[in-house]
């Protein structure tokens, strides 16, 4: 099999013919036997030499030894020694040849050695396999032979031919490798179970045929996988990663991987994690060797620097911390560091790194510190100290900050071996001195006339606000924006961090838990950046797992932590939540009378959202309820909040008539010049997963109506202070009396609700809401006026509320149907709906009951029935 890449031809010499495999095994056996013999000869040679020396010493004394005559003497022992010396040299040569290519480079840390830079034009990919990969590859023949035997037994016939090696045979062989086993362990799967399934199904011709795969392609795909990681050898993990791309979708291996939720991406990510762990370990070994020579004190190797008293007081020597591994291990910003070196060597040398908090600015600085501690940096950074200036220490020193800053900077210049780091340099712009200049102006002026290298960090927003237009800033500083990490890069950074957390907390992270931490924190935790927010969740998870029984960090723990932080039920549906969602209509109907269409629309919308089918870019669900007053629009929202969210605090009710005037939008979103959040902003920040009830929506100002165009489309809202709020987990219910008259007319004419709705859309609603807003709601529900029996039902519900109040006083009261009918007949007003029922009960029934209580005719333990007789209430 051949493949071409540019000028290089790749061949594969590892065919799985039994003869070649046997030859290789025999060769390996003979080599091992030979090595054993040669080692024995080495020992024999040394013993012979010792004997020759001893005999010579006995005969001629010490000069025989000291003058080396025992080496030249013609004797059997000496002869044996020299023969063994020759074989020792051969042994040594074999050892060196075997380990060639694994030697590290002490000094060329920056040089990228691509294994594709080969001198030969033809490369045998088999020779790029490491020993375990070769073993796994060759062992697949054994599994193929076993499979053939099983098939022959099953069909009671012998094929007489050598078995064709299939991908399942290779997989079974790979499952015996330790690294592959640890990959499966990371996703919580036992390799024995996988092997069992593959073995059982590998006999199924329909799922495991040679035409369903391209077996010969596997080594070359493995080569590609290895090259993605700049891995110098093809190891068993690379072979495993290559499998899915060489088999078709119906293959049994695809089915197995799908069943255990192991996608190609996940496979590659975990393999990358294990590979980078090894790299990190090698890097640290190299670092510890090279950093030994970095001076400990303020004085550099070149003896040009001087002690820096001020800088030591108001700064932190990062290279010294790195030398003693006191800085967090940094990984993930190597490419950014290379770009920075290019900028530093090309320009003025001062750099301002733009990146949001938590996106890796500090990681970049720490990586630089480690590199400087081991001198793996360009010449302009060599033999220097990386010192972080503590701005807060300068500002809080109580002395004149201007002179203190200048003195510190002068000291750094004079020392000559300082590279200064200023984190959050925009803070200097805010610190204005008595002279009217900010500390930033002073710094910039200083740098224009002195040679000092400064590396600063800031956020993108602060750069635009404070730095970009600062006088001469961009002449002195070269900006560099941190590259946004991809999801896989964030995952890798999180994985590496988890390996360190595992060692520190004696716990184990499942890979899915790390994925969940990255994905859920991305979705639900706002106001922070990756990878910081994912790592924060993982650190907390590790701390909890440390004290747990099983010490395993699973997806459930991650979901719990995120749910606690955000008050969002981030976990996959819990049993009681599932039950609630499935029976939501039933539960709501106990409190909401009639209005089946509205209850169904809300329940279906919520089920859709919580099952994950809803688009993630819009609010959870949004409804517009139209209808006369007092028919249950607000009651549905309250009932939903009570049943589904369980607590009042998740519901925010806004009376939109309060946002009617020209200042309505400011009142809703807040102002930029104040720190106080408005109710809606505060609520969304605290409870991203909540219910927003907007009553009398038609009364809001047109600006607010336009604002909701964006909210309902994008699920985000920008506050007056410029904060972007995420409403993708918010349920929005807007209620409106718009078109109530048309609805009542339609009911009187006997029209169906659908026809009434069509008429509303075509004739009435346009006067209140723009069509594009109406279209953005998930459902527009028309509420019909309550029927007589529904009003009675509402009355009964209100009477039940009075019953509950009396029960709290120890009185068990019941009401006859006459009472309910009386309330329904007298309290209901078509123009006000069911609203007056509560007031009627209060004014009549509660007044009657209160009198009885005061007359002690009702006391604790009383069981009574209240009836209406001749227009008056009586105890029965």
């Amino acid at each position, binding site marked *: 099999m051949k493949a071409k890449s540019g000028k290089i031809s790749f061949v594969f010499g590892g065919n799985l013919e039994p003869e070649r495999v046997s030859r290789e095994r025999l060769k390996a056996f003979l080599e091992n036997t030979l090595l054993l013999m040669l080692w024995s000869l080495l020992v024999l040679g040394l013993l012979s030499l010792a004997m020759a020396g001893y005999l010579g010493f006995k005969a001629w004394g010490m000069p025989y030894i000291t003058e080396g005559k025992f080496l030249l003497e013609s004797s059997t022992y000496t*002869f044996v020694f*020299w023969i063994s010396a020759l074989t020792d040299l*051969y042994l040594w040569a074999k050892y060196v040849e075997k380990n060639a290519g694994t030697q590290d480079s*002490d*000094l060329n840390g920056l040089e990228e050695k691509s294994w594709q830079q*080969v001198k030969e034009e033809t490369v045998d990919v088999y*020779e790029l396999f490491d020993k375990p990969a070769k073993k796994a590859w060759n062992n697949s023949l054994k599994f193929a032979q076993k499979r053939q035997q099983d098939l022959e037994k099953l069909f009671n016939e012998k094929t007489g031919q050598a078995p064709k090696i299939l991908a399942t045979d290779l997989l079974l062989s790979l499952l015996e490798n330790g690294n592959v086993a640890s990959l499966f362990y990371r996703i919580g799967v036992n390799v024995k179970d996988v092997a069992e399934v593959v073995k059982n199904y590998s006999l199924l011709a329909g799922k495991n045929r040679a035409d369903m795969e391209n077996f010969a392609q596997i080594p070359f795909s493995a080569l590609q996988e290895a090259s993605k990681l700049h891995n110098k050898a093809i190891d068993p993990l690379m072979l495993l990663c290559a499998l899915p791309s060489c088999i078709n979708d119906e293959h049994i291996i695809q089915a197995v991987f799908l069943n255990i939720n192991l996608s190609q991406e996940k496979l590659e990510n975990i393999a990358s994690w294990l590979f980078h762990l090894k790299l990190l370990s090698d890097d640290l070994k190299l670092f510890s060797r090279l950093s030994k020579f970095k001076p400990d004190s303020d004085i550099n190797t*070149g003896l040009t620097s001087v002690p820096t008293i001020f800088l030591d007081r108001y700064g932190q020597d990062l290279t010294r911390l790195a030398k003693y591994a006191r800085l967090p291990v940094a990984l993930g910003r190597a490419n950014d560091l290379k770009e920075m070196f290019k900028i530093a060597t090309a320009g003025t040398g001062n750099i301002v790194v733009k990146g949001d908090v938590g996106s890796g600015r500090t990681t970049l600085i720490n990586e630089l510190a480690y590199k400087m501690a081991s001198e793996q940096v360009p010449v302009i950074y060599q033999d220097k100290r990386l010192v972080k200036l503590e701005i807060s220490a300068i500002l809080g020193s109580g002395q004149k900050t201007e002179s203190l800053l200048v003195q510190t900077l002068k000291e750094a210049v004079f020392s000559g071996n300082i590279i200064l780091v200023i984190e959050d340099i925009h803070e200097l712009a805010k610190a204005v001195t008595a002279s009217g200049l900010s500390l930033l102006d002073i710094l910039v002026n200083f740098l224009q006339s002195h040679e000092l290298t400064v590396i600063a960090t800031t956020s993108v927003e602060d750069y635009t606000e404070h730095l970009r237009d600062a006088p001469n800033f961009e002449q002195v500083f070269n900006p560099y924006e941190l590259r946004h990490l991809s999801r896989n890069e964030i995952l890798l950074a999180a994985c590496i961090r988890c390996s360190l957390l595992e060692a520190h907390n004696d716990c184990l992270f499942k890979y899915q838990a790390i994925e969940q931490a990255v994905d859920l924190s991305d979705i639900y935790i706002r106001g922070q950046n990756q990878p910081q927010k994912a790592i924060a969740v993982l650190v907390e998870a590790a701390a909890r797992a440390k004290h747990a029984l099983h010490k395993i960090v699973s997806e459930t723990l991650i979901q719990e932590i995120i749910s606690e932080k955000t008050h969002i039920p981030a976990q996959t549906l819990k049993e009681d939540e599932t039950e609630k969602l499935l029976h939501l209509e039933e539960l709501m109907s106990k409190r909401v009378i009639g209005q089946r269409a509205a209850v169904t629309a809300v329940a279906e919308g919520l089920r859709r959202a919580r099952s994950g089918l809803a688009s993630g870019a819009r609010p959870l669900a949004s409804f517009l309820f139209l209808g006369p007053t007092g028919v249950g629009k607000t009651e549905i929202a309250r009932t939903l909040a009570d049943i589904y969210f369980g607590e009042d605090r998740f519901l925010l009710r806004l009376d939109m008539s309060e946002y009617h005037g020209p200042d309505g939008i400011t009142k809703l979103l807040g102002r930029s010049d104040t720190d106080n959040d408005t109710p809606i902003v505060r609520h969304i920040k605290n409870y991203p997963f909540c219910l927003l009830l907007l009553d009398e929506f038609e009364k809001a100002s047109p600006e607010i109506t336009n604002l909701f165009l964006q909210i309902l489309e994008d699920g985000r809202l920008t506050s007056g202070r410029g904060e972007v709020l995420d409403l993708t987990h918010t349920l929005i219910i807007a209620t409106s009396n718009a078109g109530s008259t048309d609805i009542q007319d339609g009911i009187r004419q006997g029209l169906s609700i659908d026809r009434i709705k069509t008429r509303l859309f075509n004739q009435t609603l346009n006067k209140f809401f723009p069509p594009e807003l109406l279209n953005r709601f998930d459902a527009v529900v028309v509420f019909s006026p309550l029927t007589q029996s529904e009003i009675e039902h509402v009355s009964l519900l209100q009477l039940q509320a009075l019953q509950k109040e009396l029960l709290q006083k120890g009185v068990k009261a019941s009401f006859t149907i006459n009472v309910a009918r009386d309330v329904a007949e007298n309290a209901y007003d078509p123009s006000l709906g069911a609203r007056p029922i509560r007031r009627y009960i209060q004014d009549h029934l509660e007044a009657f009951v209160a009198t009885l209580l005061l007359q002690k005719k009702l006391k604790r333990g009383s069981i009574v029935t209240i009836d209406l007789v001749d227009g008056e209430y009586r105890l029965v």
Partner: protein
Amino acid sequence: MNNFPLNLLTLPIWWYTRGLTMAWRWYQRRTNFALQSTGLALFARHMWEPLYQDYTKSGRILSFFLRIAVLCYKALISGLSLLYYGLFLLVYVSVLPAVLVMIIFQILSHA
């Protein structure tokens, strides 16, 4: 990637081709590491700068002589390192023929 058929017969060829290249690279790495540990190159780069930023006339003069002394010391240590590792290289180059000569000598002596 290297398919050099290394066995007892081809050992001398390997020894003075691929083996010697590896030995030379080893020597380079070791000596570079030794030079880095003494800081000779770094120190030499700052040869004309006064010690501890002392730019006075007397400081410059003193620095010059002190730097010469330190440089000589560092050069001596570096040189000794080069020699030390060079010896290993010399041993490498000479050990195989020496062993072969001794074996031939032993054979002839016995004959």
